[in-house]
Every structure is written in C-alpha cells, then in structure tokens.
C-alpha cells in the first residue's frame, strides 16, 4: 500500500503528468483565478493560511497513513498520540528543562509508548489474526485510555507552551506567524524525509514490502516483527512532533485536541491516497487551501463542512485518492 510519489517509468510516462504535477497546475490556476476575482492581497493571504493549515494536518496524517497502509489498522488513537506528545513535552518543560530538550524527550516517550502498545496489544492481536473490526475496537479503547490518562494527570483546562505566538513574518502585504512558518517548514521537511526513507533505506523497502503482501514478506525472510515495531515507533514520533508543533504554534490546547483534529487527519490521508507520505502532504494542502479559500466567498462557519465536501468530491473523481493506485483485482 505504500506508494511512491511518481509513477515508475512506463511507456505512457511522457504522455501522462504525475498526479502531483496536475494538482500543482490546478492549484496555480485556481490561485490566479482567485487573485483576479478577489484581489491578490486577499487571495494570497488565504493561500498562506491554507498552507499553514496544511502543514499541521499533513504531519499529523503521515503516521496515520503509514499505519493504515502497512498494518491495515484504522488507528482512531492516532490523534491522541499527538496529544500525548504535546502533554509530555508540556510537563517536562514545566519542570524547568529547555523547550527543545523537553520536545526531544517527549518524542522519545511517545515513540516508546507506541512501541509498547505494539508489544502489548497489536502484536498479540496480529498473532490471533484478529479482524479489522476488532482492531478498530482496540484502537477506540486505546484512544480513550490515552486521552483520559493524560487528562487524569494534567486536568482538562487549557494549557500552553507560552511561546510567542504573536510575532509574525511580513512578506509585503501578506503575513504569517513565525511559529506557524516554523511548523510548516518542519512539517514539509519531515514528510519529505519519511518519503525518501521509505524509498531508499533498507527498512523503508521492508515496510513497503509488508504493505504489499505481509505473508510474502515473511516468506522472503524480512524481519516483519522488527519492521512493524519500527513503523509504530516512526508513527509515534511523527505524531509527537506534530502535536508539539501544533500546540506551540496554535497557542492553547486541552486533552481533546488530538481527537478533535483526527478527522481532518483522516481526510488528508484519504484524499492523498492511503499509505502514501506525500499523499498526506498533498491531501493536507488540498483541504487547507479549499477551507481557507472558501472563506473568501462563504462565512468562515462553513470551513469544516467544506473540507469534508472536498473529500467526497475528490473520491467521486479519484476513488483511491490523489496518489492511489488503480485497484488491482485479487
């Protein structure tokens, strides 16, 4: 299920642009049109806001799409991994450690929790060949346990990293928050790193083999247990980074925040094509831009609905998302 961004060279390669290029063309055309209708200042600002949205969502969605693509688990607990990362960092920072160190430790802790859950829950269920539905129930259960354990210790009131969320970078008539820019750039860099890692490293190739055919991968001597464990660790670490960046740049969070953005993460992952890291990024960009652009024409109250509508429309045209492969009948 892990798919590469560009289609492998094929006889029709030159006659067909890769989906990412198509998407880029569509976005640029739409932007030009918006700039013409609404003026470049408004259109540009909405676009920047959309990209900021996209950065938050895409990074959170990468872990989700890896787990779904490789392990076929609809991980309803993923949003709560974002929360876990952010809260562990908050608590460590509260003890006086510098924020970057707190963040690094929180990433390690979250990855360790993800690995421990694999050992305690997912691996035994894998051995029993549990159905997708039971995995769903277990994921719902883990989501509740994580969210409310965090709340038990931290309380449900809002918390903040206390970073400066007021400072902004001004680019001519446009602006965006400094921390928003940091989150966006870090998100894109990490997603590209994950994409490259999947493609070029030995472990990445093993993961892709797992997603294509778990049984076959096992027969060919791949250490499936190790690769699966590593997938969870990567997903946990990415979730923690996403959660920390989100919390720092948005300003305030409470223990519900991860579960509340979970649906946006799913939307981005599915829109991009499940299992594809770059897909999560492009899915995030499409949703983010659509939502913010919609505010140029509609009341902002419609933003969330616009995101879901775009998802449904995309699936009607591209049933497997932007990067989804044409279904191979088995």
């Amino acid at each position, binding site marked *: 299920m892990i798919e590469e961004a560009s289609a492998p060279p094929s006889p029709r390669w030159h006659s067909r642009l890769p989906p990412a290029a198509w998407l880029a063309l569509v976005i640029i055309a739409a932007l030009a049109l918006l700039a013409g209708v609404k003026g470049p200042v408004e259109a540009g600002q909405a676009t920047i806001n959309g990209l900021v949205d996209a950065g938050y969502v895409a990074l959170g969605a990468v872990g989700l799409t890896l787990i*779904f693509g490789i392990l*076929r688990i*609809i991980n*309803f607990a993923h949003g709560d991994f974002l929360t876990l990362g952010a809260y562990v960092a908050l608590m460590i920072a509260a003890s006086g450690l510098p924020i970057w160190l707190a963040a690094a430790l929180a990433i390690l802790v979250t990855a360790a929790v993800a690995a421990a859950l694999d050992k305690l*829950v997912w691996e*035994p*269920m894998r051995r*029993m060949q*549990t*159905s*997708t*539905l*039971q*995995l*769903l*129930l*277990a994921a*719902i*259960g*883990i*989501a*509740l*346990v*994580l*969210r*409310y*354990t965090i*709340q*038990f210790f931290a*309380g*449900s009131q809002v918390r903040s990293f206390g970073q400066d969320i007021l400072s902004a970078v001004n680019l001519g008539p446009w602006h965006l928050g400094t921390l928003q820019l940091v989150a966006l750039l870090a998100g894109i860099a990490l997603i590209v790193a994950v994409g490259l890692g999947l493609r070029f490293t030995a472990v990445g190739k093993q993961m892709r083999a797992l997603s294509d055919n778990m049984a076959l991968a096992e027969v060919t001597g791949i250490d499936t247990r190790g690769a699966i464990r590593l997938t969870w660790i990567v997903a946990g670490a990415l979730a923690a980074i996403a959660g920390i960046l989100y919390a720092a740049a948005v300003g305030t969070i409470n223990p519900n925040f991860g579960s509340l953005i979970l*649906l946006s993460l*799913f*939307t981005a992952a*599915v829109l991009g094509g*499940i299992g594809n890291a770059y897909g999560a990024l492009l899915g995030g960009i499409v949703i983010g831009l659509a939502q913010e652009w919609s505010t140029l024409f509609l*009341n902002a*109250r*419609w933003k*969330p*609905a616009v995101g*879901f*509508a775009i*998802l*449904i429309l995309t*699936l*009607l045209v591209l*049933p*497997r*998302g932007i990067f989804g492969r044409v*279904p191979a009948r088995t």
Partner: protein
Amino acid sequence: MSILNADFWIGVGVIAGIYGIFALGLQLNVGLTGLLNLGQAGFMCIGAYAMGMLVVDAGWPILATLPVAIAAAVLAGVLVGLPSLRLRSDYFAIATIAFAEIVRYVLQNAAFAGGNQGIIGYDAEWRDFAAWASDRLAAIGLGEQMQLPLLFSIWLVFALCVAVLRWLRRTPWGRVLTAIREDEDAAAALGKNVLAFKLQSLAIAAALAAIAGFFLALNVTYLYPGEFDPTFTFFGYAVLILGGFASYGGVVLGTIVLWTLIEGLRFLDLPLSSGEVGSLRFVLVGLTLVVLSMARPQGLLGRRAEMQLRQ
C-alpha cells in the same frame, strides 16, 4: 444504596435501547453485508430532525412523522450509497463519516433548522401519552418512574426490530447479503445485483438510525447538532463489536453490557477530585474495550467463522 436507584437504571435502559436500535443497523451493514458504515449518526440526525421539524414547523402529529422521518433517512442512505458504494471499504468508511459531518455542520450553520439553537417543543403529544401511561403504571405501583413508558416503548420497538432482522436474515434476500460479504465477485457472477443489495442494506440501516433518532429526541426533548457528532457512531461500533459480529442477539447483550459499564461507573467512589474521577471513568471504559477485543475477538455472542471483513 444509591447505586440501586430505579430512576437511574431506567435511564440507562433508555440509552442502551437507543444505542441498540442504532447498532442493529450497523450490524446489518458491517456484520451481514460487509459495509463499513461510519455515517450512522448522520442518518440518525436526519431522522430526528425530520420528526422535529414536521411537528414544530408543520404541526404534524408526532406518530405521523415517523414514517416520513424513516423515509428521509432511507433517501439519504440511497443518495449517499449510490456514488460511494463503489469505493473500497476503507474509503467508503471515510466517505460516510464525511457525509455525517456535513449533515451536522449544515444543520448547525444553515438557517432552516434552528442552527445552534436547535429544535424544541415537539414532544407535547408524547408527554401526554407518557403521563397517561404513568397513570396506568401507578395502579401497579410504578407511577413514580416517569421514564418507564419511554423505556417500554423503546425496548418493544428494539425487540420488534431484532425479530424482523432475524427473519430477514433467513430469507433468500438475507442469504444474498451474506454471500456478498463472503465473496462479492462470486455473488455478482451468480447474477446478483451487488450494488442494489448493498444499497438496500444501507437503506435499512438508515431507517433503523432514524428510529433510534426518534427515541433519542424523545429522551432529550431538545434537538441540536452537537448531539450527532461521530462519537455516537463510535460507541455504536463499540456496542456492535462487543456483542459479536453477525449476531443481532449480540447487539442486545453488547448495548446492555457497554452502557451498564459506562453509566455504572458514575458510582465509582474514590478519594479523588471530580475531574480525576471523570477521567478515570473513561480510562476504565477504554481498558475494558481493549481487553475485550483481545480476550474475546469474536465478541460476546459472535462466531469466529463470520469475522472476515473483506477489503
């Protein structure tokens, strides 16, 4: 013993019954047809709002609205199903949840259904009936429990739905559904119109959701969009999976067990703050779900052989 309070447990029975009817539809979709419908709360919302608006805005008698509410939900089921049923099951799942969220946001933000203020005042006839029924129940010493008429109505309808669904399962129609779940291509090869059968399954589930919505509306006496968030569907799934795959009896048992657990934990008495107890309650619910999904993968009443959900 405060935990033995009759009013409280009647209330739990009401909630369990509503979720039970709701989850019967999920069972039909997931357990018997292989459709991962995550939009059930949306169908419930449509049914409940159709009832509320017809009573309040159009002055219909409440019982007369029930068939229309069901029809509205069924129509929504068909409209959602037609384009989305050709998607792979995981994409279908996300498409249905997106639909349910759109329904909720439209009702919150559009002007026609009361927006955030919702709908109120549709329950006068029901309250008259409940008062009448309470008077009759008073003759046998049960007049103080004002929610009893609702409890009886819900569980009567719940039992009827279970009976009908069980009968349907044994009909040739039901066997085609199972065949589709087992092997869609084989069913198609036998000349069955797979899409039509799936649509019918989804439509019946939507109808059940509308009935659940009808009773939910009577229980809370106030309709507003926040009641229909995806959490409702997730707890419906918990009922379904807990009770057992492909078993309607499992839904009955699952909803009783789940809601006894969730609500019974309100009596958890620990020397902690209210906030900590509130959190702990859901930690325990979550732990129970995890442990049960590992210890009893087929659910309480499910059969292991029926558990393969096709991708």
